[in-house]
């Protein structure tokens, strides 16, 4: 059944579960239905006061939401890995939450591990209301099937750490422990993240400071790994405009300790909406606007007949930053219901480091 639904991923998926939009249809209404009018659902408005741990839990009044973790890892032999864990929620209808099978929520999980020579991924779906998938804020627990992200004692509400992350597919699995000693970071204007000039927005916060240790098993061969992780939490009812066709998103861990989040929303008219956040080691942030950011593809890989820009030159003159990003595995392709590229990258130039790149709508 899964392949019958066209579904996006991180960013904005769920809509598609219901709408079944893909390809050109998706373009027509914005990426995977995310440009849909948010009728009946709660609106994202500036000035929200976040409360934790409550906001770690689901916000069913909003159409879509996700819990999203990307990790850059390395084993004892110096081999680099990436691992992804994502849980998406989408409401089919607004209104009070129904019990049992009548519940309006559809959940989707994506998990992947990436190495220079291989990229493994898995996808799963669940209906809300019966316990197959869900998120509880306290004690923190997000799960779908056997995949789980759960808070370990003693969890810090503001750091959402430590966490244990598990997932498995037919030919891979991982169990990772995530620790963070700093509070999470609100993106945009106090957690209000604009997605277009016309006011589309989402609530968005991140925990970019995770340190990771655990094991990744590929083809029954386990490897002990350590590294860094980045969690994104985002929810909205209508994050994209109808003429936005896809996006390119990056989360970067700089060797000096800074973090950088960047995204570019591509529009049908060829213009882009760019935004970013420069996060200092102490947690202070600096918002970056379209004019501050230069993003230029430098290399392409053809996958399933699509031309994917897998390498990028990124320049932010204001920060004297100019880097060249290259993928760990240029074929980090998620051939899931809704197809997209998502994988670990490394960069050099004025700054060095590792991160994750996600590209949808190609």
């Amino acid at each position, binding site marked *: *059944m899964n392949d*019958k*639904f066209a579904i996006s991923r991180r960013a904005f998926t769920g809509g598609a579960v219901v709408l079944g939009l893909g390809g050109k249809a998706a373009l027509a209404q914005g990426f995977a239905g995310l440009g849909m009018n948010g009728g009946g659902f709660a609106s994202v408005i500036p000035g929200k006061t976040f409360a934790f741990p409550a906001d770690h839990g689901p916000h069913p009044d909003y159409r879509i939401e996700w819990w999203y973790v990307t990790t850059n890892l390395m084993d004892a032999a110096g081999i680099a890995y990436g691992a992804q864990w994502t849980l998406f929620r989408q409401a089919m209808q607004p209104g009070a939450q129904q019990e049992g*099978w009548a519940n309006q929520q559809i959940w989707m999980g994506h998990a992947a591990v990436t190495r220079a020579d291989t990229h493994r991924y898995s996808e799963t779906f669940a209906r809300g209301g019966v316990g*197959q998938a869900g998120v509880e804020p306290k004690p923190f627990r997000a799960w779908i099937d056997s995949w789980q992200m759960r808070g370990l004692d003693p969890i810090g509400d503001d750091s959402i750490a430590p966490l244990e992350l598990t997932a498995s597919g*037919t030919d891979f699995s991982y169990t990772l422990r995530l620790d963070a000693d700093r509070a999470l970071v609100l993106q945009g204007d106090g957690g209000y993240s604009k997605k277009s000039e016309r006011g589309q927005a989402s609530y968005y916060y991140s925990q970019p400071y995770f340190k990771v240790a655990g094991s990744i098993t590929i083809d029954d061969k386990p490897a002990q790994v350590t590294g860094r992780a980045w969690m994104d939490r985002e929810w909205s009812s209508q994050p994209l405009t109808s003429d936005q066709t896809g996006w390119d998103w990056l989360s970067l861990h700089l060797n000096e300790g800074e973090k950088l989040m960047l995204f570019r929303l591509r529009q049908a008219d060829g213009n882009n909406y760019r935004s970013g956040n420069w996060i200092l080691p102490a947690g202070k942030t600096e918002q970056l606007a379209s004019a501050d950011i230069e993003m230029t593809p430098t290399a392409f890989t053809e996958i399933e007949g699509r031309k994917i820009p897998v390498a990028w030159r990124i320049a932010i003159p204001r920060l004297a930053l100019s880097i060249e990003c290259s993928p760990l595995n240029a074929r980090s392709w998620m051939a899931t219901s809704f197809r997209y590229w998502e994988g670990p990258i490394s960069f050099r130039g004025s700054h060095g480091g590792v991160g994750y790149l996600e590209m949808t709508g190609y």
Partner: protein
Amino acid sequence: MSRLVWILAVLLSHWRRHPMQLATLLIGLISATALWSGVQALNLQARTSYDRAAATFGGARTAMLVSRNSATFPQQLFVDLRRAGWPVSPVVEGRIQIGGRSLRLLGIEPVTLPAEVGNAPAIGKAGLQSFVTPPGEMLVAPETLSELKLTEGVTPLASDGTLLPPLRVQPQLVPDVLVVDIGIAQRLLKMPDQISRLLVGKAKGRRAPLENIAGDKLRLVEPDAESDLERLTDSFHLNLTAFGLLSFVVGLFIVNSAIGLAFEQRLPTLRTLRACGVSAGMLNAVLLVELVSLALVAGIVGLVCGYLIAASLLPDVAASLRGLYGAQIPGHLTLKREWWIAGITISVIGALLAATTSLLRAIRLPVLAAAQPYAWQQAQHRWLIFQSALALIVLATGGGLLWYGDSLVSGFAVLAALLLGAALGLPAILERVLSLGQRSAHRPLAAWFWADSRQQLSGLSLALMALLLALAVNVGVGTMVESFSRTFIIWLDGRLAADVYLNAADDTQAAEIRAWLRERPEVAAILPSGRADTQIGGAPIEILGLADHATYRDRWPLLQASATAWSRLRAGDAGFVSEQLARRLKLGVGDSLDVPAPGGNWRLEVVGIYADYGNPKGQIAVNIAALTRRFPQIPLTRLGLRVAPAAVPALISSLQDKFGLDGRNLVDQARLKAESTRIFNRTFAVTAALNTFTLGVAGIALLTSLLTLGNSRLPQLAPLWAIGVTRRRLAAIELAKTMSVALITTVLALPLGLLVAWCLIAVVNVKAFGWRLPFHVFPLQLLELVGVAMAASLLAALIPMIKLARMQPASLVKIFADER
């Protein structure tokens, strides 16, 4: 190239001069292709719909988890298994009534439904939301929608007054099934948080052991390559295929004789062409091109005819499959490209096969060769010995298979060996009979009669073999059907013990009806009955509850029983098993079996075995009180009534008025019997139709062989005419000869046919259906068949004989002048 075209033109000119021959050749090829591909089309259609059924139900094709005690189980197990890595999807199943018609209601969960469940109803992209969110949607096959006399989009009412979700047509769905979201199904079936089974997806990955999550509550049923329906209906399709193959072979006999005739008549042309310098290779290539082109044309026409045959038989096939196995086949034919390609291929291969001897002779054709009929006969004699030896080997193989074989396929192999061996042995037997006749003849013309009949055998033997096969199969199938019909009707009389059968809407109504009936003086007895379903060894089993009443004791037929069988039932620790279940589980009277029941296994001693014709499921009969103790949830809505026949119509109409029961749930014995007999008759309508076709094709084979012989035999007849035997007398002698060999063949076909019938009844039926019928011989039927065979032979012989009787003396004179 142009040379090739010229040679082809020369060869083709023959057909222009002999249009009858061309017609015969084409008829042979067309009938062979038509019957074969018609049968294949039916099989294909049925298989496709089994696939559809298997996929829709998430049936045998998908691995499943089911409850050990065959009951439903809590939905929480689904969540627990998912959380432990099992790719499972829940299904809830039950029945629901709309307008008095009982339909299967299936609740599925589209989001987790495994992708490999295949052509399961595509809920579709935009459809998910409207399917799962109340009121949801109810998917229905177009056939069922029209049978319910409803239209898409309406929200029907169930018989208990529940408002059902709006109907949506789903063409891939099998008939008589309604599919809704699991949440909606649980509500409609009043089974909150319960599921009937879990479909297990193929996705591998880490899974916790089943016992750790579900304890011993669930059992894994591995997927089968074949669906249940496929296995059940195998015998039926094997049967059809056997008929198709038989007709195909008989059709090839026609082609063989037509090609043989054409070759015979074109010998001078071929020789002339060779003498003109055409190489043997070139000549053969052209003959091959000619044959393949004819086969292609005939193949296409044959396919069209095959399609028509299949389309006209489909309603009967569908009725048979529904009656025998409960399989639903859509009533309109859809064909795949593979079918067309296979049909054309089989036509070409068949034509080549039938022409092999002629083509081989053409290769070896010496430029200057005279006709050598006697030399042929010499060769024929050696061939006869070889063929007889082959017949013995085939028959011995058949005997071996009968002794050691234990499957349906081996049963059919025994049949095939029997028929093939008999056909191969036929010429030798005829030869013996004719030489005996020759020895007893004293007058010269009589001696010539026998000797010439023997010489003629080589040319007729193929056609006679075809006749033998067609007749034997006719006798065999006719005897089996008649035996079955007789047994079935006697059995039905006993089995339908009550006079009126009714099924109340629910337990409350059943109680009201019973109270009302007790007040009625014409009702001699009220016999409650009930039915539960369970599984033994993965196969579905019905358990029938019988009232403890003299009606059953007196009338219910038992094949075997212990002395106190009926009184033993009362205690609830004994039961009767149906013949097919007894065979499958190898049970005899005195054995015991464990029946899975909600409260744990129910141990029953087998105290009787009864026939249960036409039921694909195994069945166990127990006391009704014992059944309700063990299966407390079964509805007690079925009642049988003993009523004086004269009072039946009045009682039925007052029951109808008082309780709103209609024809579906209130029926008298006579109507039920008529309905059952009608289904039974339709079941064998296809067999009868194919039987007739085969006999018809055999008649054509005989006709063409005689036509072939008619021309080549002039050199034998001309001398007799020259010494004074009149043309009329000659024709009469010829007719007598044909009729006598046909009669011998027919007489031989009778015992062979009875053997075939015995094989069908004692081997094939037992393997296919699990029941054995008493074997009856029907002399009148046999006599009738002999008459039909002789009439067909007469008809076939008439045209060549009339030709002979009217032949110009000049043609006969020419024999002495001509070199053929």
